[in-house]
């Protein structure tokens, strides 16, 4: 009793609750999974909000008038909103979608000294156009006009080092991207890059509230003439978090209420309920503390799901209490009598949860540790603490109608029922090949159709760079990676011309390989003949520009612009979303606009270290991997449970009989899904793994029959089946598809396993 508050205090002191959904859902045990996890966690694109401000839809004539007479234009409104949003703590950067941010422009100017080394991705092919002496007069006049234009200050800084403005040639595509956007967005499209990771839903919720508050306050001043919509990964993240929170609350409350009602119905004792709840509470605290110590943090979903999953911990006190009530035993003698079965039952459940932790789904690793510690605590408390607590409690075990009748029925018609069972097994075996596996992770995602529609509407205002699909370049060092990236960009340029990809964001000329820099410098050196220089100077004179200041075209700088130097400058910030850290390799990504995945993949064929990466495909691949692993772990779990039962019983027949109800229920459930056409995911398999670990307990208790009264034993099993159904059945109320799947799998498995016990295991003799 004294330990409980101490444990609670220690847990509160140690606990660090994690709310990042990514930590729960994405595995990081191979290179691609790590990449996917990294992208979801901190990827530049996934941290971006796409914001659209547009005129509010008029609802009546008066409103229409107020909109058209709005005192603030859309552009002015958006400009002010940008400056307001930039002040928010969680905002890294915000800019109008049709203009590059200021630091991008400053970064472009910093490339001027290296103009001769990075003016073209295809220097040989572009040389005739760029170094055509006949066009130098026009270029000089163009320079003059640029100096006179509003960009004069920017152009002057570059022209002093790069009179031909060659360094700007490589950035032409960047300029055209923004011009394209300008036509599309009509001034109200903004891009906001958040500091927190996309899936840090707590921080993103705070940021979204701040964005809406800034907008609302400014919109009130503008007569509520505008409306705001947002899209992006963080918007989905917050919505998902909200849905999950609602699910967690609903499931926890309903599950707790149902377990309490079942308990009161079975034992009619508030005092016993109080003590059993205390055992449950202490088990929960121990589970939380153990998870915190093992993982350094505990995920909020682990706490929520774990709370339901350890509902089975009530099974152990229930067995003790049913025997107490039916046999009028003292709690201590009942627990001593049942302890071998309780310990073995607990062990097989622990094995089931342990196997769950090895399925590869990161969230279940935490749940496994949580459940292991909780079950161990519950068993220990049931054995050594509960008897003392129950001494003064009056227990009245309810008689569950039909339980004894079902046991008798199975005994009387065993031959017929076993024949039917055998036929069922054969039919089930034949139907198994028809089973349909779920190949798309998306089907396990929450239904967010409204949000998806809003996302599509908002994205229609932006040039369409897709956040989840890109070209991935991998190499052992920077030079090779950049050469591969440049080869891929050349190919993408051709694919763009062929209409296979609408646009792409490469790394050239922000990062240029030494090889391409040398090629550019060579082409530049060859073009820089005395005749060319004379023609340039003549052009300057004709344009009225200073020959002294612009007439000398210097040779290329001797040292290339190294990747290390670029990444040491603010350009790193611009490219951070396209550079990913691999273990021993350099990983680069080239972002893609709308594209045809098949033709694009084909178009990239033959490029070494270059492949098309789809986040969705990777997730689907993960779903398949989780499923295969969970099937393996299901097999291993059953094997290890059998081993431990054999270690206790030393009788192979008893081992097989103990496992038979759960194995048979497994077969029938798979067969039913196969016949019904249900798509089976790794979650279905995991649910069945859990049901097996629970059903095996039933076999153990039924065979052991420690109380020498099979009716009492089966009543105790019925009571624990009811509490399991109450706690797992409540998961079925969740909107997150994972919860109903778990609810269905476990409930079906447990019910079928319970019903099959007296049929498959001959009724033990009462002595």
């Amino acid at each position, binding site marked *: 009793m004294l330990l409980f508050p101490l444990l609670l205090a220690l847990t509160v002191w140690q606990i660090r609750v994690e709310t990042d959904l990514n930590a729960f859902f994405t595995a990081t045990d191979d290179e691609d999974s790590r990449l996917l996890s990294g992208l979801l966690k901190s990827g530049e694109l996934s941290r971006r909000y796409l914001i659209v401000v547009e005129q509010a839809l008029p609802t009546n004539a008066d409103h229409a008038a107020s909109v058209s007479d709005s005192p603030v234009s859309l*552009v002015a409104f958006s400009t002010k909103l940008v400056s307001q949003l930039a002040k928010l703590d969680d905002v890294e950067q915000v800019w109008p979608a049709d203009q590059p941010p200021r630091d991008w*422009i400053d970064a472009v100017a910093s490339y001027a000294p290296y103009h001769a080394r990075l003016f073209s991705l295809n220097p040989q092919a572009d040389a005739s156009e760029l170094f055509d002496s006949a066009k130098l007069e026009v270029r000089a006049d163009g320079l003059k006009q640029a100096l006179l234009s509003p960009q004069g200050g920017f152009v002057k800084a570059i022209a002093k080092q790069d009179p031909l403005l060659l360094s700007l040639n490589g950035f032409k595509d960047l300029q055209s991207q923004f011009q394209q956007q300008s036509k599309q967005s009509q001034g109200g499209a903004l891009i906001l890059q958040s500091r927190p990771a996309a899936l840090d839903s707590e921080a993103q919720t705070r940021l979204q509230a701040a964005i809406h508050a800034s907008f609302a306050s400014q919109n009130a001043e503008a007569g509520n003439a505008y409306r705001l919509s947002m899209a992006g990964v963080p918007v989905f993240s917050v919505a998902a978090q909200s849905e999950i929170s609602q699910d967690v609350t609903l499931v926890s409350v309903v599950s707790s209420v149902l377990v309490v009602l079942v308990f009161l119905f079975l034992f009619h004792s508030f005092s016993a309920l109080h003590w059993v709840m205390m055992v449950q509470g202490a088990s929960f605290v121990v589970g939380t503390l153990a998870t915190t110590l093992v993982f350094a943090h505990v995920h909020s979903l682990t706490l929520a799901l774990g709370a339901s999953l350890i509902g089975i911990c009530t099974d152990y006190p229930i067995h003790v209490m049913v025997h107490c009530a039916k046999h009028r035993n003292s709690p201590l003698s009942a627990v001593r009598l049942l302890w071998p079965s309780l310990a073995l039952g607990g062990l097989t459940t622990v094995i089931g949860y342990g196997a769950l932790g090895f399925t590869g789904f990161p969230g279940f690793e935490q749940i496994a540790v949580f459940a292991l510690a909780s079950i161990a605590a519950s068993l220990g408390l049931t054995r050594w603490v509960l008897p003392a607590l129950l001494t003064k409690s009056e227990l009245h075990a309810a008689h569950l109608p039909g339980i004894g009748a079902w046991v008798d029925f199975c005994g009387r018609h065993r031959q017929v029922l076993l024949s039917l069972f055998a036929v069922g097994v054969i039919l089930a075996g034949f139907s198994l090949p028809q089973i349909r596996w779920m190949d798309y992770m998306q089907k396990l995602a929450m239904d967010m159709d409204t949000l998806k529609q809003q996302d599509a509407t908002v994205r229609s205002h932006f040039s369409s760079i897709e956040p989840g699909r890109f070209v991935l370049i991998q190499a052992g060092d920077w030079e090779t990676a950049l050469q591969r990236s440049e080869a891929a960009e050349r190919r993408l340029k051709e694919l763009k011309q062929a209409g296979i990809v609408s646009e792409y964001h490469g790394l050239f000329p922000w990062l240029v390989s030494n090889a391409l820099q040398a090629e550019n410098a060579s082409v530049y050196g060859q073009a820089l003949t005395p005749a060319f220089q004379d023609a340039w100077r003549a052009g300057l004179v004709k344009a009225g520009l200073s020959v002294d200041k612009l007439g000398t075209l210097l040779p290329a700088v001797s040292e290339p612009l190294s990747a290390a130097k670029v990444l040491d400058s603010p350009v790193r910030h611009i490219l951070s979303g396209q550079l990913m850290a691999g273990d021993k390799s350099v990983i680069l990504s080239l972002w893609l606009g709308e594209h045809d995945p098949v033709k694009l993949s084909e178009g990239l064929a033959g490029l070494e270290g270059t492949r098309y990466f789809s986040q969705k495909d990777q997730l689907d691949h993960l779903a398949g991997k989780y499923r295969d692993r969970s099937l393996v772990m299901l097999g291993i779990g059953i094997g290890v449970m059998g081993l431990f039962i054999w270690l206790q019983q030393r009788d192979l027949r008893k081992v097989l009989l103990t496992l038979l109800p759960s194995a048979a229920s497994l077969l029938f459930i798979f067969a039913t899904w196969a016949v019904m056409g249900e798509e089976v995911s790794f979650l279905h398999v995991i649910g069945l793994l859990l049901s097996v670990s629970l059903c095996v307990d039933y076999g153990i208790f039924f065979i052991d029959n420690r109380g020498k009264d099979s009716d009492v034993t089966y009543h105790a099993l019925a009571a624990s089946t009811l509490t399991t159904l109450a706690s797992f059945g409540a998961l079925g109320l969740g909107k997150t598809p994972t919860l109903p799947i778990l609810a269905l799998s476990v409930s079906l498995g447990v019910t079928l396993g319970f019903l099959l016990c007296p049929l498959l295991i001959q009724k033990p003799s009462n002595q």
Partner: protein
Amino acid sequence: MSRKFCLYLCLALLPMLGLADDISLPQLLARIRQTGQSQFRYEETRVLELASSPWHGQGFMLSDADGRLVKLQLQPARVIMAIADQSMYYWDPQQNQRHSAALGSAGAAAQQITVFRSLLQGRTEDLQPTYNFAAEKQGKQWLLRMTPKAEFSSDETPTIEISGDEDDQQRRIMIRQADGESTEYRLLKSAETQDSMQRLLQEAKGE
């Protein structure tokens, strides 16, 4: 301290307050403020660091009470630069160069034309956070000299002089950049019919 001493002190400091003649700063600011629609013929002379000789241009400037400004350059080539809806627009049909940017985010590119609009329309309150003002009057000529405040003296903020006569028919604006470049505008009120401001704005925006 006697009242007479205070009077002498005020008289002694009067030139430092920028009143060389009988015009006060508020009077001058009120004089240069344009409240309605106006149109000027202009001549522009720019001294660029990278040009061998001063550049000359001419055309028309149109402004209205809403703060919109269109600078229509006709010589040596047609170019439109405009401010409307808190955005700056630039259109050079000969070079096929079109730019637009929100004033708040366009940096130095927008700074000059924003300052110029404030000068032309006499919205000196926009400039008061950045500049110290000094007013002078000699005969019929008045001069408003604007020098960047200490905290802005080292950046790209130009020094500006705006001058005119009592008839207020012509005006001269001189903008000197910190790097030595300068732009001089000579403006003459004009009643010549030009394209409407709206049409020029549409052309600049590419609509």
